[in-house]
């Protein structure tokens, strides 16, 4: 039995190692291509690296390559995704500030609970919620089970855990809500009245403009943006938390 577990552990480690090695290979090829000025190949390399395993560095470099190709929308999306993984990434923050100034694109308007969720990586909020919940449950149940003496610090710990849990709950709602935020990829992407190819164009959206997905119908998504609401082709924008 012990050998079986060891075998599974070794297999899992080797699989994770091979995936990381492939990611590094694609990343290195992207770096080489961008140094040679071949931005198309660089984008391909970084995209493969991100597809293999999303990483902040690969996304930052992907955004730089897309920016050099003139794809402001794709660049902003890549840097937003880097910030999604790590809100403290300085390169992504600096590039986003620059890109929004150069491309005249707005920042997404976040609700209060979404703004709170930006403080930490999305998964961290869930771990905090889980830990604080079980801490609260443990602080309430374990003294009774183990017949510990009732003490003030245990009650305080339970109260603190529950408070953290409540706050992290709102942040988690914000994280889920932010998964519907996307950015327009194509320049002058048409905002349509109906989800059809021949639909009437309400307005056009700039590359890099933030939009919020409401619902999906076929190849079109109903989105709301600063320029109004309407249908947009799914390929014309990208979600930050893409699958």
């Amino acid at each position, binding site marked *: 039995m012990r050998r079986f577990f060891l075998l599974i552990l070794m297999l899992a480690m080797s699989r994770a190692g091979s995936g990381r090695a492939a*990611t590094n290979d694609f990343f290195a090829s992207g770096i080489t291509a*961008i140094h040679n000025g071949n931005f198309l190949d660089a984008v391909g390399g970084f995209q493969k690296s991100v597809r293999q395993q999303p*990483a902040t560095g690969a996304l930052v470099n992907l955004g730089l390559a897309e920016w*050099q*190709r003139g794809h402001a929308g794709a660049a902003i999306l890549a840097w937003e995704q880097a910030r999604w993984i790590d809100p403290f990434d300085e390169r992504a923050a600096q*590039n986003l500030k620059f*890109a929004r100034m150069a491309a005249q694109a707005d920042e997404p308007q976040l609700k209060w609970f979404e703004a709170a969720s930006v403080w930490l990586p999305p998964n961290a909020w*869930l771990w905090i919620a*889980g830990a604080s919940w079980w801490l609260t449950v443990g602080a309430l149940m374990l003294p009774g089970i183990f017949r510990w003496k009732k003490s003030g610090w245990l009650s305080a710990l339970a109260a603190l855990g529950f408070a953290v849990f409540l706050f992290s709950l709102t942040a988690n709602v914000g994280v*889920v809500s932010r998964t519907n935020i996307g950015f327009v990829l194509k320049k002058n992407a048409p905002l349509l009245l109906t989800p059809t190819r021949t639909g009437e164009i309400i307005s056009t959206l700039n590359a890099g403009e933030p939009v919020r997905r409401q619902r999906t119908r076929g190849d079109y998504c109903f989105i709301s943006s600063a320029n109004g609401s309407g249908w947009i082709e799914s390929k014309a924008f990208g979600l930050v938390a893409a699958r």
Partner: protein
Amino acid sequence: MKNLQHSTFTLERRSFGARTVERRAFNIECSRLKIFFLILLFATFRAPAQLPPQLPPGGLIQLQVAQPPVDNSPLPATATAVFDPPAGRAGEKTFYRVTVTATEPSVQWPKKIAAPAELKFGNGARGQMMQLLGNRYRPVTAFTYEVRPTAAGRFTISNFVVNVAGQPVKIPAANLEILPVNSPPSPAARELEVEASATNVFLGQPVRVRVLLPASPGNGIEALREVQINGGGVMTDKTSVRQAVETVNDGGQRKPAFVYEATVTPIAAGPLQLTAQAFTAGREFGGPVSITAPVVIRSGPPRYDLLVSEPLELKVRPLPTESELPGFTGAMGVFIADKPQLATNRIHVGEPVRLRVAFHGVGILSRFVPPAAPRSRDWQIIADPPPATGFTLIPLTDDVQTTPAIPFCAFNPAAGEFVDLTIPALPVTVIGNSLPTQLPAFDEAENQSASLKLSGLAPSPGKMVASLQPLQLRGGFIALQLVPAFGFLVLWQWDRRRRFLAAHPEIVRRRQARRSLRKEKVKLQKAMAAGDGKGFVQHAAEAMKIACAPHFPAHPRALVCGEVLAQLEDPRGAAGETVRKVFAAADSQFAGTPQTPADLLALHSDVMVVLNQLEGKL
């Protein structure tokens, strides 16, 4: 609104200074004019030779000669009616010709003509031409009927009146002399002949149709005017007309003929009948005519007779649409496409690039329809106006790496199949419009500060995650939360059990007794196997005490034989006797004459029965 026109009054009273300025301006204008004319003079030496505009033959004449006007004077229309030929044999074909000097729409021609029953009327034709009389054109409308007399005799179509432009016009009577069948042959009626390059054709396949007017006896040739090829379901292309006088095969005899050749395209499937009609025009040849046969062109005024032909049947088959390839535009024939040539293979987004494609054909090329521009998401494709076959391509994105393939095919009538002529995709590099990488920045005092710029490249992949999809939207984390929940559940169950056992200590004692009894039984078996009688009775007594202790409750060592006997169902039976013997033997070890081991080991089966009985009560 303010009037912007200058008054001439102010010009007349100009000041001296103004006159001086104007004179200087005039001198400057003159010098500029001199330079301009000099440039013009020298420019003529650099100017390339200009070709004169290419006009079709006859076009210059049309430009130079004033066209005579059409005679629309209210003169009364006149009419003639004859049989051509006026005499013949029974059963031979003749034509009843009526000519009215009026336009065709103005003549209200009767649907049926009253004629003797022996004259069988066949197909009729009508046409109009403009006859040049003096310095005016006069319209002439002709009606021609094919007539076959069935009997000999003299027949007359009497005069009748038709309405021409609201005025009655009398059509004179016409006589026909018909001889018996066995009489000598008379000259045949003049009529046109129609030939086609192919009579079994596909829908849309162009066919060359020749209208022939054989020469009269003595090789006299006449021109044809207002030639029409009639028949439903065909389209005549008059831009490819060719006229000639050449030797043709007429019923096995070679003789000169006037030939009018045009391209006809069937536009309906099924059997089609073509007929031709034309006016004879003597020596009035309209357009270029190549004469390659020895003929005589007679002088004198022309005679405008409307001639018709026997019908020619075309069998038109529909195209095999089941094998049709994409990009069919109706091109029919044998075509070969050259390799497409792109002006450049490195372009920017939005920059047009020319794609040249040349098609070569065999046979009739007038029906070649160039490929249509397909719709593409990534390219704007503009086709050159036909008959050019090139395209202008404009990339809309830099994601493309090839030009779009342009589907095209043609139908080869000879092989009866579609031929793929798709213009293949060509590799191309599209460069996107670059964006700025540095921006000037200003502080609050509007002074230029450190410029904003993009960051450098990240040297390593950095912080990684398994997926951009957050754990909140994945089921795995919820499953993970079951682990601490299960741990707490186990703890809770353990606490409940512990509390229960605390409330019921006999359960613990019985469990402990059963555990100790199992151990003593093992020791008992070992003593038995070793033949140790002393040890056997010691362990047997101990086991019995352990099995009985929870019932009192008491420590096993505190029990004696009587208390063990009290737990038996029948203390005076065999089991009780065995207990007594065991306890007696155990106690006798402390006596002076202990029992022999053989006697004690013989109690083994009885001891086991007692122990099983006691264990059953635990």
